[in-house]
Structures are given as structure tokens and as C-alpha cells.
């Protein structure tokens, strides 16, 4: 009998093409997702060496990072010249190399990490890579998914493999159930708050426990999405009946006998009893509160009921970093987090741009108006999420409240397109990074869940969403 293995061990073992004596492995890649920003140099490399894409049928491209999200985006004048060149390059590369493609004009276009699962490209037990760090999202299906650089994009295009060394196994268990008003976003931020942004470096994390099992697939994607912010190579959640139900009937999911065979295989994808963990972190679900970030690192996490910390609360290099964060964010130690005024709200991104996220925000906004002078936008994660939200009446709730209702893309998460903060503007964002300048030079970002973002839009300051839930109940 073989030794007990983790889920990561099992997926890894099933994808090793070659192992060198020094332990370096060649890992087979089942799905390669491609977007316009990190791929042009890779395709150029193929052209210069006369190489082909080895498995175009396993390669999927979609422009998302710098496409405008305004309703007039088909008008080329809404794009800067360099953005237009990048998107045109992806159009051409997809055509020349014969890969699957969802152009800007296609209703299925959206953020690559939302499109992959939505179209059934992402399935349990697969290896998935993309030239984007938030590829970790796909781990929610029990697929080994991580970001790669452009040289590795070229390597995967040419060989359908990646040179890898195996990471260590880390288990993050969330026991019990979440309290009302607490979401997947609060779980993932709380884990980073507990472990730090380098706490997962060198590991693949498997999230488990009752609170994880109780999450929907959308929530699980939110949790895995931010594994990278904790430094981990990837985040994983073992597939279960919810996973299979989500995948069934998707355009690129298997059908008939192939579906049956796939489910039988997927049911073997769990960590065995007695498997070895190099690191274990446990949080109690009922201890997790709605959280918000105060600083410029995703580890700067506090419950919304807290106060802005002082640099003297930290040790080592973090003292200087905390002071720098406070200066950048324009905050004073001891200030209540709920006293922090907000002028911009952004709901969207690969972290929180799915239908469930829009439902959560709309539930808070229903029948309410955003604060005077507030700039608020919702950017659905894909054209299909957008269409579904319109069908469910969510779009109208956002519009009536005073939100801009946008087309799909990465938008203000990384602000490569025109959706940006001005210096000194302060945003409650459902995205994943609060780095200096992330949403625009001098812009200040507080990471929150969709419900918390909606609450801040109404009150004009960071707000405990649970207070508005009482009002709406």
C-alpha cells in the first residue's frame, strides 16, 4: 500500500512527465489561460524561434486587464494606443496560433479567472497555469493552479509543460461555521492576517474544515484567489458534490460516459488520512469577523470593530513598513476604522466579481442610495455574470442606488485601464491588493467583502455590514 498522500501530492504525481536526479520535474499542464498583458513577448519568442503552440486546444485566451469597462468600449477611441496595441496583438496571436479565444465583443469575455470555470475549462484534478498571480482562484475546484511569468508562458505554449520543484504541504483549516455577515473574503483575509504575506512562501495550501465545505463554489474561488497574497504557490480545496454540480453541463465539461469516468476520478481527489503536513494553521470560523485592511499590504488586516494600529505594535522591518503605510494611507494610530471616510467604492475583480458577490452587495443596497459625492462602480467578472445579474434584477438595484453598471474586465483592481483612483482618493474595494499605487498613484485602498463595500457606499465611511443587515432584515 502506498503512503498516505495529500491532494497536492496526488495531482502532482499524476502530472509528472519527467523527474531529474536532482528532483527537478517536468510537469504537464492541462489548461493554459492567456491574457493580453503577459503574453505578447511569449508569442514573439515563439515566432523568433519558429516554434508552434503544442496544444492549442488546451490554451484559452481572453483580453481582460486593460480593456475599458465603459459601455462605449467598442469605440477604439476609449483605449489608449498602447492598450489597443496589446489587445490587437492578442487578437492576432490567438488567430495565428489557433487557440481558443473570447474577444472583447463576445458576451463570454471577462476576467480570465472567471471565464475559465464558467466555461468548464477548469475542472478538478487539472493543472492550470496563467501569466497572472491570481490563477490560484482555480484551486477552488481541486485543481493545481498557479501564476507564471512570461518566460514560463512561452515555455508552456511551446511544450505544454513547466519545470517545477515540488512545494511543501500546508493545511489551513477553518473549523465550525461563519457568523452572519462574514464571508469567504473575510476568511481569506483573516488567514493572511494570521500568517503574513510570506507565511505561505514555499507551500501549496489546502483549505479545509467545515466553514470551507459550507462555502459555495463562488466563495471557495474567493478563498483560493488570495492564496497568492499569503505567499503560497497555490491554494486548493478538495472537490465535492458542490464542485461536480457546478461543473456539470458547462460548455467544456465532459459529457456522458466521459463525465461518469471523470467524477469517479475526481472522487479520489482528497488528502488521505495520515498524510504529512509541513505546516498547519487552524482558525475558528465563529471567531472570524468582517475585516478590512488598514495598510498597504494584504496582511494589514483587522476586524472592522478595531482601531488603526501604531508602528510600535510591530517588530523588525514591519515597524518602518507600518509607519510608511500609515503615512501613505493618511491614517492616525488609534483612529476607529469605522471613522475612515471613503469616496470611491469598487465592486468587482477575480476575487469578488461573481454572481454571488453581486447578490451580496445588492442585498445591502436594495432600496438605498449611495452617499452624496460617492463614486461607486460595479464591474461584473464576465459578460455572462453581467447578463445574469440583469436577469435577476441586481443591475437595477445597483443603478437605482447610484452605482455605475459596467462591462466586464479587471478594471480598478489593477487600474491598467482608465478606471483609476486620483492621488489621495480613498476606496473600499472588493479586490485583492492594497499596495501603494495599485489602484492609481497616490490612491488609498481598503480591501473588504462585497457587502462591506456596499455598506461603505451608503454611509460614506468604512462600516460594519452587520449594522445594515439588521436594518434590511
Amino acid at each position, binding site marked *: 500500500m502506498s503512503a498516505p498522500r495529500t491532494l497536492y501530492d496526488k495531482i502532482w504525481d499524476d502530472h509528472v512527465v519527467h523527474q531529474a536526479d536532482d528532483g527537478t520535474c517536468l510537469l504537464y499542464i492541462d489548461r493554459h489561460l492567456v491574457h493580453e*498583458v503577459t503574453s505578447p513577448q511569449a508569442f514573439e519568442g515563439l515566432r523568433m524561434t519558429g516554434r508552434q503552440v503544442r496544444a492549442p486546444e488546451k490554451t484559452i485566451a481572453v483580453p481582460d486587464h486593460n480593456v475599458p469597462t465603459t459601455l462605449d468600449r467598442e469605440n477604439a477611441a476609449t483605449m489608449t494606443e498602447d492598450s489597443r496595441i496589446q489587445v490587437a496583438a492578442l487578437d492576432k496571436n490567438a488567430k495565428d496560433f489557433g487557440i481558443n479565444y473570447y474577444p472583447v465583443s463576445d458576451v463570454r469575455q471577462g476576467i480570465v479567472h472567471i471565464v475559465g470555470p464558467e466555461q468548464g475549462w477548469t475542472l478538478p484534478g487539472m493543472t492550470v497555469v496563467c501569466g497572472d*498571480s491570481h490563477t490560484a482562484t482555480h484551486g477552488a475546484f481541486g485543481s493545481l493552479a498557479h501564476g*507564471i511569468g512570461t518566460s514560463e508562458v512561452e515555455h508552456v505554449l511551446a511544450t*505544454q509543460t513547466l519545470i517545477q520543484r515540488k512545494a511543501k504541504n500546508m493545511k489551513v483549516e477553518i473549523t465550525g461555521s461563519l457568523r452572519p455577515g462574514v464571508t469567504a473574503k473575510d476568511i481569506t483575509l483573516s488567514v493572511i492576517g494570521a500568517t503574513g504575506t510570506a507565511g505561505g*512562501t514555499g507551500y501549496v495550501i489546502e483549505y479545509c474544515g467545515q466553514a470551507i465545505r459550507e462555502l459555495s463554489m463562488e466563495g471557495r474561488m474567493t478563498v483560493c484567489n488570495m492564496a497568492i497574497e499569503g505567499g503560497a504557490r497555490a491554494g486548493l480545496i478538495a472537490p465535492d458534490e458542490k464542485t461536480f454540480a457546478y461543473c456539470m453541463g458547462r460548455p467544456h465539461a465532459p459529457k456522458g460516459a466521459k463525465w461518469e469516468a471523470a467524477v469517479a476520478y475526481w472522487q479520489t481527489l482528497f488528502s488521505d488520512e495520515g498524510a504529512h503536513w509541513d505546516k498547519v494553521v487552524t482558525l475558528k470560523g465563529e471567531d472570524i469577523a468582517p475585516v478590512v485592511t488598514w495598510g498597504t499590504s494584504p496582511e494589514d488586516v483587522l476586524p472592522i470593530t478595531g482601531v488603526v494600529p501604531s508602528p510600535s505594535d510591530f517588530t523588525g*522591518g514591519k515597524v518602518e513598513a507600518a509607519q510608511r503605510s500609515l503615512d501613505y494611507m493618511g491614517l492616525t494610530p488609534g483612529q476607529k476604522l469605522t471613522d475612515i471616510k471613503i469616496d470611491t467604492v469598487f465592486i468587482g475583480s477575480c476575487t469578488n466579481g461573481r454572481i454571488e458577490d453581486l447578490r451580496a452587495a445588492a442585498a445591502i443596497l436594495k432600496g438605498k442610495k449611495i452617499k452624496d459625492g460617492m463614486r461607486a462602480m460595479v464591474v461584473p467578472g464576465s459578460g455572462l455574470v453581467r447578463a445574469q445579474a440583469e436577469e435577476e434584477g441586481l443591475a437595477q438595484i445597483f443603478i437605482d442606488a447610484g452605482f455605475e453598471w459596467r462591462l466586464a474586465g479587471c478594471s480598478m483592481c489593477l*487600474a491598467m485601464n482608465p478606471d483609476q483612483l486620483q492621488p489621495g482618493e480613498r476606496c473600499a474595494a472588493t479586490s485583492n491588493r492594497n499596495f501603494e499605487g495599485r489602484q492609481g498613484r497616490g490612491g488609498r485602498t481598503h480591501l473588504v467583502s462585497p457587502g462591506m463595500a456596499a455598506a461603505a457606499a451608503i454611509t460614506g465611511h468604512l462600516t460594519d455590514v452587520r449594522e445594515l443587515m439588521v436594518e434590511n432584515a
Partner: protein
Amino acid sequence: MQKFTTLTGIAAPMPLVNIDTDMIIPKQFLKTIQRSGLGKNLFDEMRYTLEGEEIPEFVLNQPAYRSAEIIVAGDNFGCGSSREHAPWALLDFGIRCVVSTSFADIFFNNCFKNGILPIVLPQEQIDVLMADARKGANARMTVDLEAQTITTSDGESFGFEIDPHRKHCLLNGLDDIGLTLEKASSISSFEAKNAALRPWA
């Protein structure tokens, strides 16, 4: 890829922890379809004012460090996005080696694909190197990849670990894709086996 054998050069001290890829190269410079030309925008928002004037306090703007080839950095250097524009910008500026207690995984990988050597050392040794880097342009450090050592201007030497495959590729300037394509038959036989085992994939 440019080979990396030995390097003797100026080291810039950057003790800040969590220097992220948005700091190294902000997103407005990711719209290029080339690898070159990013050096002038390396650390753009820390290095220039909104009006584009140099900020004199920033380390790489100081006369002693304008031609630095090594960075000694705080913990978790390169965290954040997968953008290879970060190592491209470092390389284009002239940085060939970064030393820290830890690096983010994707950035670490990306360095090796571009002839940049990231070195991981314990905090006490980083402290010594940081103090040496603060001495300025006359204090040149030496990195010897073959011997796996980094030596301060005072001659104090520390050994470092490196994956043998990566060391081999850096020393010889080897292209990974070429090496992998030598194993094309292994990839083909894996694909055949996989098509039977996991036909849906």
C-alpha cells in the same frame, strides 16, 4: 539569456519589507509588447515625483548607487503579481543580483529566466550585507555563483544555497525551452497515457 558567473559591483540597500511588484514596476508600464526599455521606470513611483522629477532621497537616485548592480532588500521581496516586467526592469537598469531573507515564489522563478540571481540568506547575514551596502560606491560586493558565495567589501564571505538545475542554467546562459524540447518524446508518451486515463482533460 545572459550568463551569470561572477559579479563585483555596487549594492544598493533597500531595507523595506514586502517590496512588491507594483513598486518595482507600476502597471502603467506593462503595456509594452517588448522586454527591453523598462529600466528608466524601475521603482517609478518611489523614484520620481508626479511631475517626473527625481526624488533625491531614493536610493537609486543617490550618486553612490546610480550604477548599482546588486540590491540588498528587506523580507519578501517581489511579492504580488506574476509580471515578468519586474525582473525585466531590474535587468534593464543593470541589477543582476538581489539578496533578501525571502522572495515571493513567482518573482523568484522569473529572475532565473532572465539571468538575475536571487540569493536567500538569514537575517543576521542580511544585516551585515545591508551595513556594507550602506557604505556606498566604494564598497563593492562580489558574488561568485560557481563557489556559491557572496563577499562584502571587507572580505567577509557567506555561502548560499541554489538549486543545481538553476545554477547550471545561469552559469551557462541556457534556454529552458530548448532543454525541455529535448524531452519531447517523454511529453508525447505522457500525453498518450493521459488521453487514456483522463480523456476529459
